[in-house]
């Protein structure tokens, strides 16, 4: 049986079909002499003989998952179904495939042969009460292969899709390599299980692997890469409760994360991230910076254990929430390379470089006087509104004037354009100023006796 085109592997934009395509690509390399039906047979054997028909997260009442299709019967029915598709022996309509866009014979897809596309109970959710969505045989076959390229994450299945083909292929290849390793050892019983249980950690771990293993560049003119997005589909098509959620690691977060993992910042960044892991199951724990372990009176756990805990740093980056509160809190007692925060503000928060420079100028002015630094920190920590920080800046301007300094500390342009531009948050400016002051104090090894209030960030971290 000759394949006429590459619709079995060509990227379509549909995450499920594309994973199936990468699996077929992998199978073709592994079994170069086998045709597509023989490859389907290989996959079917794995599903039936090794995985005991356990594809319930993908297909409902399929030729494999229906209770009556255990053992050889499941194999026979599956091969019969896909052979009839390949030989165009099934009822079909001519039209455009809903996923590939190609003009070809189309077949109805539902929960037995496709993922998340609904069943007969959703007939009025299809055009003209059709019995499902209309797809080409190539897409249906790709979907059949997709479980082999996916991973179990908690109680659902995870799929990571990117705009970068190399990243997509890498995601599937790692899983398939492990599947075949386990099959060879006779221990493959189902999907590969992720060591993580939440999407945020999974995405950042995968981004880390892409950066370190693939040496992938977020923006690279030689390869034409224009930023890398990672989209995680977390889904189950199981029984009466199909569910799907999408998580996106945007290109700017990928770019920021890549910079954080560079040699210059990695150590500072990793300490900051490690400190923020949280687990409700590990009570009264504290982070031991010297050993990079989390400890309590009874136990001590290393990175390989706590890396699976939830981490508000990753969660905030995924949700587009500010990290400044966490940076500020961390900076009180720890040295953090200020460039990380500058990159964060510029890449993720679109902050003007001149705003950051102005904050540095204000910091230099404040730390000239130890008592004034102490008072300034206390005052900044106690601020409740934008009015407070405006008053604070006006006082700095006055102090600079009465000190008879020739150069204005804050010009009208600085105030309007850079400290309080449209859409800027006074909290961000306050936090940045505090971070910058702490940074200078660390650099000069200056210790100030200040009573620190517990910030909202601390309470949020524990929630």
């Amino acid at each position: 049986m000759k394949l006429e085109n590459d619709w079995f592997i060509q990227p379509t934009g549909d995450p499920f079909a594309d994973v199936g395509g990468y699996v077929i690509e992998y199978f073709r390399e592994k079994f170069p002499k086998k045709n597509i039906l023989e490859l389907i047979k290989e996959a079917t054997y794995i599903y039936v003989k090794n995985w005991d028909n356990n594809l319930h997260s993908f297909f409902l009442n399929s030729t494999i998952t229906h209770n009556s299709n255990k053992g050889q019967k499941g194999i026979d029915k599956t091969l019969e179904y896909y052979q009839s598709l390949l030989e165009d022996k099934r009822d079909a309509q001519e039209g455009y495939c809903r996923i590939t866009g190609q003009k070809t014979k189309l077949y109805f897809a539902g929960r037995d042969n496709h993922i998340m596309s609904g069943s007969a109970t959703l007939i009025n959710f299809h055009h003209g009460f059709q019995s499902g969505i209309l797809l080409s045989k190539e897409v249906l076959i790709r979907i059949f292969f997709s479980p082999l390229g996916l991973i179990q994450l908690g109680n659902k299945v995870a799929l990571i899709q990117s705009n970068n083909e190399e990243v997509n292929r890498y995601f599937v290849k790692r899983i398939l390599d492990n599947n075949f390793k386990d099959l060879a050892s006779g221990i493959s019983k189902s999907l590969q299980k992720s060591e993580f249980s939440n999407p945020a950690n999974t995405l950042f771990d995968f981004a880390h692997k892409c950066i370190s293993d693939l040496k992938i560049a977020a923006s690279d003119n030689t390869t034409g890469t224009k930023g890398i997005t990672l989209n995680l589909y977390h889904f189950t098509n199981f029984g009466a409760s199909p569910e799907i959620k999408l998580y996106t690691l945007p290109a700017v977060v990928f770019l920021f994360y890549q910079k954080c993992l560079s040699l210059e910042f990695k150590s500072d960044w990793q300490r900051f991230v490690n400190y923020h892991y949280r687990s409700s199951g590990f009570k009264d724990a504290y982070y031991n910076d010297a050993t990079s372990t989390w400890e309590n009176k009874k136990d001590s756990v290393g990175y390989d254990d706590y890396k699976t805990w939830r981490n508000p740093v990753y969660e905030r980056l995924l949700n587009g929430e500010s990290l400044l509160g966490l940076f500020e809190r961390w900076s009180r007692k720890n040295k953090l390379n200020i460039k990380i925060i500058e990159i964060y503000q510029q890449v993720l928060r679109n902050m003007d470089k001149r705003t950051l420079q102005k904050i540095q100028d204000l910091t230099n002015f404040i730390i000239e006087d130890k008592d004034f630094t102490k008072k300034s920190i206390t005052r900044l920590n106690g601020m409740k509104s934008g009015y407070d920080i405006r008053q604070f800046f006006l006082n700095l301007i006055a102090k600079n004037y009465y000190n008879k300094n020739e150069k204005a500390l804050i010009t009208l342009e600085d105030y309007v354009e850079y400290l309080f531009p449209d859409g800027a948050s006074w909290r961000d400016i306050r936090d940045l100023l505090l971070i910058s002051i702490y940074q200078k104090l660390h650099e000069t090894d200056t210790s100030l006796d200040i009573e620190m209030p517990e910030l909202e960030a601390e309470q949020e971290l524990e929630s």
Partner: protein
Amino acid sequence: MEVYKIDLTSWTASFRYPNLISGFQPTLEVPPLSTVLGLINAAAGSYQNYQTLKIGYYFEYEAKAVDLETIYQISSKDGKPTNQAKSNILNREFLFNAFLRLYLTDNIIADYFRQPYYPLLLGRMNDLATVTNIEKGELAAVVNADKVRGQIIPFAKNRLAGQIQALPKYFTNSFPRNNIGTEPYSIINFKSNALATGIQAFRDELAPNKPIDIYFHEIDFSVYA
């Protein structure tokens, strides 16, 4: 390039992922071409048979939220609907305070929006939209556009970062309707930070100091005849 800019706003909008039928219903962050061309049909009051079409658009919104929605599932027998329906619920994501700007080169199409024939919708039937402004303007060409956002861009040649989805360009005027021109697109959120693209686009200003580079989709419908 001389264009007609049509501004539409709506309280809510929701654009389905075409092939996610069961479970949670997320919304695309930018409408697909088929939705925008459907909007033109609604304004025109009839199905538009294009030979070719050049169109650009930009979409933004204020917030994203999830609504618990009642749905009715009609039971079927032998692949045909019956008169039995049962209610169910699902969570549907929606966009709040949406803004869509269309860029059209054809004044006839632009004129449809001066007095739309049917209600204009940005998604479901309750996502009612209003035309807030129609004006003629000149857009300057930009090579290697770096302010492409709030749009969908064909993926195959550009591979831009964003949510990647297979989206249709249009639907047939048949029953049932069939999608045509489906291909992968990068869906680029309006909040995305600017990245160099290598795309030829046209620069507009949404507001003072708020430039945007608009990609024009050039569709040849004859290939789908």
